[in-house]
């Protein structure tokens, strides 16, 4: 253990002379493993607690809970069908709008826009993802809903009123408003992931297409977008998952009425809105339990939907570069 000749001071001494280092090393390893273990317990515990909380309702109603449309706290009869309907329909409207607009916008940002336009537009779209849900709800309730009622619904009713989906009176709040607000909220998810998927398409594919005489637009439409196809579908599924679980904004604009109506203008109710509105008013234990079961349904839907998105979106070439994946992840999560 002579003093080192390179001017970096003494060489480190061994464990034998410094036993506390060995202890520190062991405790750090134990802490790291314990943290991982606690995390697993937490996630499994999340599922277990939701099942535990909804046990009474699961026991009392079984599978009828999913197909019954009676939600009556007075007689303690609970069925979730209208909420499942409202959740699925509002989210599908959102996905239809945000899916189409998001992919087109991503194509522009990744392929057509010059850098000095793409950068600020991307920034604005990513910031759209950062707007809190309650602010979307506030804006949806006081700005979007009156706007749709005054300017969008009357022409739709005048020209397409014979369609059952545009029938009946429109109060400004309902499936239609919720769907459009959700579309705005999930748009950044679709656009940001699709843009990164498009950029990950190898440039040889574009060059090959140009060499065959295709225009830029034809290259994007026939070569680039299909190459990113399954990933784009995965992005849409991921966005759908966000829409299905969204609570506060939807609660403020969907009208909160447990009915199943064909018209998009009708008020409706979603799984999460019922929980948000009624949880603190639930008086009986079976009522509370039924509400927790709605949360359990949401949990199970999200596991299935995100599992599907993960299968579709996973690209080995994206994983080749750690920092690239990280940037992608951060962008995606900034959209949460």
């Amino acid at each position, binding site marked *: 253990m002579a003093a080192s000749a390179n001017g970096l001071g003494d060489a480190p001494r061994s464990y034998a002379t410094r036993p506390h280092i060995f202890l520190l090393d062991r405790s750090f390893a134990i802490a790291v493993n314990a*943290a991982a273990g606690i995390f697993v317990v937490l996630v499994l515990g999340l599922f277990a607690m939701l099942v535990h909380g909804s046990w009474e309702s699961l026991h009392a109603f079984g599978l009828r809970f999913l197909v019954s449309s009676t939600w009556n706290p007075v007689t303690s009869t609970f069925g979730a069908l209208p909420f499942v309907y409202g959740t699925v329909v509002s989210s599908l409207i959102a996905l239809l709008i945000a899916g189409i607009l998001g992919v087109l916008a991503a194509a522009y940002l990744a392929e057509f826009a010059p850098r000095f336009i793409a950068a600020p537009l991307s920034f604005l779209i990513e910031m759209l993802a950062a707007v809190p849900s309650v602010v979307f709800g*506030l*804006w949806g309730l*006081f700005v979007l809903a009156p706007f749709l009622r005054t300017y969008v619904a009357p022409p739709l009713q005048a020209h397409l009123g014979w369609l059952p989906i545009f029938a009946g009176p429109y109060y400004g709040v309902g499936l239609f408003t919720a769907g459009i607000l959700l579309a705005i909220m999930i748009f950044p998810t679709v656009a940001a992931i699709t843009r990164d998927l498009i950029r990950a398409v190898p440039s040889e594919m574009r060059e090959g297409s140009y060499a065959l005489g295709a225009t830029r637009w034809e290259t994007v439409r026939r070569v680039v977008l299909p190459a990113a196809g399954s990933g784009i579908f995965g992005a849409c599924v991921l966005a759908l998952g966000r829409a299905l679980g969204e609570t506060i904004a939807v609660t403020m604009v969907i009208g909160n009425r447990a009915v199943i109506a064909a018209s998009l203008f009708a008020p409706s109710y979603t799984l999460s809105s019922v929980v948000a509105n009624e949880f603190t008013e639930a008086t009986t234990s079976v009522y509370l339990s039924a509400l927790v079961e709605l*949360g359990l349904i949401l949990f199970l839907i*999200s596991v299935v939907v995100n599992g599907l998105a993960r299968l579709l979106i996973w690209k080995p070439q994206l994983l080749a570069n750690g920092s690239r994946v990280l940037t992608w992840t*951060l962008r995606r999560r900034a959209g949460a």
Partner: protein
Amino acid sequence: MTPFGLRRRRFVGALGQVITALCASLAAGTLVVILLYVFMQGVHALNPAFVTQLPRPVGMAGGGVANGILGSIVIVGIAALLAVPMGVLVGVYLAFYGRGPFPEGIRYLGEVLSGVPSIAIGLFAYTLLVQPLGHFSAFSASVAFAMLMLPLVIRTSDEALRAVPVSVREGALALGIPTYAAVTHVVLPAARPLITTGVLLAVARITGETAPLLFTAFGSQFWEYNPFNPMAELSLQIFTYAISPYTEWHEQAWAGALVLIAAVFVLNVLARISLRGARR
């Protein structure tokens, strides 16, 4: 005569580009419209009293959301204290300590958790901490928020740590320093900017979150410093004010939204600055 109808194809291409540009501008424009509305509506009710005073009863002018702002800071702060150390440790586990199939399993659980709706996580915190104790508490809200933060902190730490070249860690180990010190003194500092970005984004995300608070923090009209009591929170106050029938509360909701959106945007911009620092 152009080959293969080139003129028509060029026209279709130009049209396509215009349409895609419109789609991108529409989304960016929506953000601008939302921001303008929040600013114009919110700036009326925004005054020093709004951020320093307690809420007043309906019908009385003035008052503020100071207790809600304090509540947000307390609830988010406790959540970060819970989630960041644990998340970074799990990240260290995934990057360096995990063996066999366990790391992949934990990464998958992280993916699952990141997709779970916040309201379901709120219900978890309720059944875990509110129901057994018999009363609402800010701490239960922090636990729910920590659960929302964890997947992001874990995933960022994991990827940031793995992005540090192996040679850096090997160099440290070759100098004879113990494994824990190689991680805490060499690899973690190198990964810190990216982890900071992830943490800031996670904090920004939960700052704007409202749903789990409805049945965890619950809200309060008063100053509350004990995290084991019900506590006011800014986004929850905005929600309550917005769905109320009173005009003066609506104004308060807009002003609250302005404060909230400013806080969230500052956090996001900080995250971007940190990310830029990491790329360099």
